[in-house]
């Protein structure tokens, strides 16, 4: 079970796995996530489902190597298996016929934005998309995004590819130009989502974000992922992961994402050390 069928290196630190998980694929929809464990000693890590294939019984996961678990995951190859893969979890994206929609994907957030863009397109929306990353190395899926977008803007923070801009810049320009945008999705690192929400707020356009809190079980049992949205404590795993970006307490989310910073550093160093000794 949960065998990696194929692997694609989207960028030096961004990897894609197609994983056999028929019971997850059966129900997976845009916006859903899974919780995976590498091995018996592994932590439970939430990853958004970037794509799924019901017939083949597979799901696609995209992740960026940032700490011990994701770095170790980056060494896994086709034929390797996850110890567990649970899902689909969370609530799916609210796909409707809005009219014109804007999809903003930053960094590894391009992966979860893609299935939402595809479903919105299939639902008859005019899809405007902006994808961006720090530099060209971190960009991926421009081609896939182009197939589901009526208009695509690609940018990098350092100008190494596409337009030199943060994703908030083209977003703001489109809103200022009076494009008839009914709904916006912005997915990426918390800080990017925070600034997207701040950018769109003055224009009053509903902006959905997908929060990436720390989780354990992913089923509402522990409350690790809790964050205030509109003054109420919500559990990202069961009430989200998508919320109204204008209502999220971003500073609380950012603080809560840093709870285990020290331990993450320790684990990463221990792991790197073991790797060096082992190889």
């Amino acid at each position, binding site marked *: 079970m949960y065998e990696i069928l194929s692997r694609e290196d989207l960028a030096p630190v961004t990897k894609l796995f197609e994983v056999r998980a028929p*019971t*997850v694929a*059966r*129900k997976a929809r845009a916006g859903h996530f899974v919780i995976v*464990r*590498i091995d018996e*000693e*592994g*932590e*439970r890590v939430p990853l958004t489902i970037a794509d799924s294939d019901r017939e083949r019984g597979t799901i696609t996961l995209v992740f960026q190597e940032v700490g*011990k*678990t994701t770095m170790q995951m980056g060494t896994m190859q086709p034929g390797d298996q996850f*110890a*567990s*893969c*649970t*899902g*689909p*979890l969370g609530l799916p994206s609210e796909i409707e016929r809005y009219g014109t929609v804007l999809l903003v994907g930053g960094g590894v957030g391009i992966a979860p934005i893609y299935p939402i863009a595809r479903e919105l397109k299939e639902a008859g929306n005019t899809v405007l998309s902006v994808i961006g990353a720090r530099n060209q190395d971190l960009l991926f899926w421009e081609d896939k995004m182009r197939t589901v977008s009526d208009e695509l803007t690609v940018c990098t923070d350092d100008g190494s590819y596409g337009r030199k801009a943060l994703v908030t810049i083209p977003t703001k320009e489109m809103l200022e130009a009076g494009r008839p945008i009914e709904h916006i999705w912005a997915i990426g690192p918390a800080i990017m989502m925070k600034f997207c929400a701040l950018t769109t707020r003055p224009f009053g356009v509903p902006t959905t974000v997908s929060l990436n809190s720390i989780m*354990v*079980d992913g*089923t*509402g*049992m*522990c*409350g*690790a992922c*809790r*964050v*205030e949205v509109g003054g109420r*404590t919500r559990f990202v795993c*069961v009430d989200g992961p998508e919320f109204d970006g204008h209502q999220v307490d971003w*500073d*609380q989310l950012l*603080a*809560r994402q*840093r*709870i*285990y910073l020290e*331990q*993450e550093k*320790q*684990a990463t160093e*221990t792991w790197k050390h073991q790797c060096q000794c082992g190889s």
Partner: protein
Amino acid sequence: MSEAIKPMPQDRMKVPRQEMPTQEPAVRAHNFIEVALGFPDQSAALEAMRCLQCKKPKCVEGCPVGVNIPAFIGRLREGDLPGSARSLKSDNNLPAICGRVCPQETQCEVVCVVGKKSMPVAIGRLERYVADWDLGHPSPPPAVPPPTGKKVAVIGSGPAGLTCAGDLARYGHQVTIFESLHAPGGVLIYGIPEFRLPKHIVHAEVNYVCSLGVDLRLNEVIGKTYTLDELLEQEGYEAIFLGTGAGLPMFMHIPGENYNGVYSANEFLTRVNLMKAYLFPNWDTPVKVGRKVAVVGAGNVAMDSSRCALRLGAEEVHIVYRRSSEEVPARAEEVHHAEEEGIIFDFLTNPVEIFGDEKGWVRGMRCMRMKLGEPDASGRRRPLPVEGSEFDMDVDMVIMALGTHPNPLVFTESGGLERTRHGTVVADEKTGKTTKDRVWAGGDIVTGAATVISAMGAGKQAAADIDRFLRGEAVPAAGAAATAAVG
């Protein structure tokens, strides 16, 4: 035990209740090894002698799963350990677990006739002794009747689900347990710490249930991976037992509860027990441990949380409880063990606000002193705040152990299940039948947070009723005589 001893009844009464050795408090407060070490053979033999083998045993009535206590103690007394284990396991699928975590002092032992003149027979310790012997001497699983061909889904692999599944398999039905986590056992695995219930014991007893022919499907979340209606209508299950417990944590809804360093007891215990954060970084999951920790609440979960925090290296751990020592809901033994280990109890104290520093970490907690007023709906005296009694506790970690609610995830897109305003499922007290066709429920999902053994009792009753239903015998009308939620 080498030979059976046959004393006269009057001699039996002279044998004192045998003490079970434990790790020294000062030592065990720094390790996760089991606190209680179990009876040595000699103590078990002496303790078994104390049983009077009553013709009408009160202890059996006191046991929620009706274990034939005199029978297994009788065999033990005769030196027939295999026979004793067989007898015990014919009534109870999880004896090594029950021998450790059951509140025998309020169930079988409180009604023991020996207890009228002296201390009751240590039934729980004997149960543990026999069950542990059995785990060390594997025997083939008991024969099950020919398959009936009927498929039953059991949701949740905690005490209620495991008991129900084991009994249904013994009736000859084809049982599948669906578990959302990556390890079976429910609260036995994520909640109760290693030092009170070693996980190898849980694994061994889960394996025993599987050896009866039960199929276990991990990592499948009912309500997400499959809905209840899909199981009934598309996946070919003829009946469902819901044993998903009460897994949703409660918070106080006071300011500052989302600061870093405030945990639900569920999260803290899950990180420590299921994810083995006490073995970090060899195991990947971390947990933060404060210097000074406040655990809010005084149930068994609060005791477990406080003792885990101590073992992880906290300098000072407080139990903060709004009522007095009289109302503490935890087992006396757990409170005693916690006190021995140095946990500080702050009674008649209630948090009103948690303070944080500029980085969002807990740096203190404001509390009020309480006094007890008239009894409330629970029959306990209502705690009332003492005006002007606010004071600040210097803590850097807070664990909320306030109780839990059933997780509503399992009901997703499946109608027809009546629930109380506490979120518990309405089910017949005797049979566990819910208001939904072909669905039974038992354990904390019906009663709200309660004990392992009461959940097992409910699982057993439901298994019997599901068996009657599958055999085409009459079942009571759906949801008749519903139980009230304990809350």
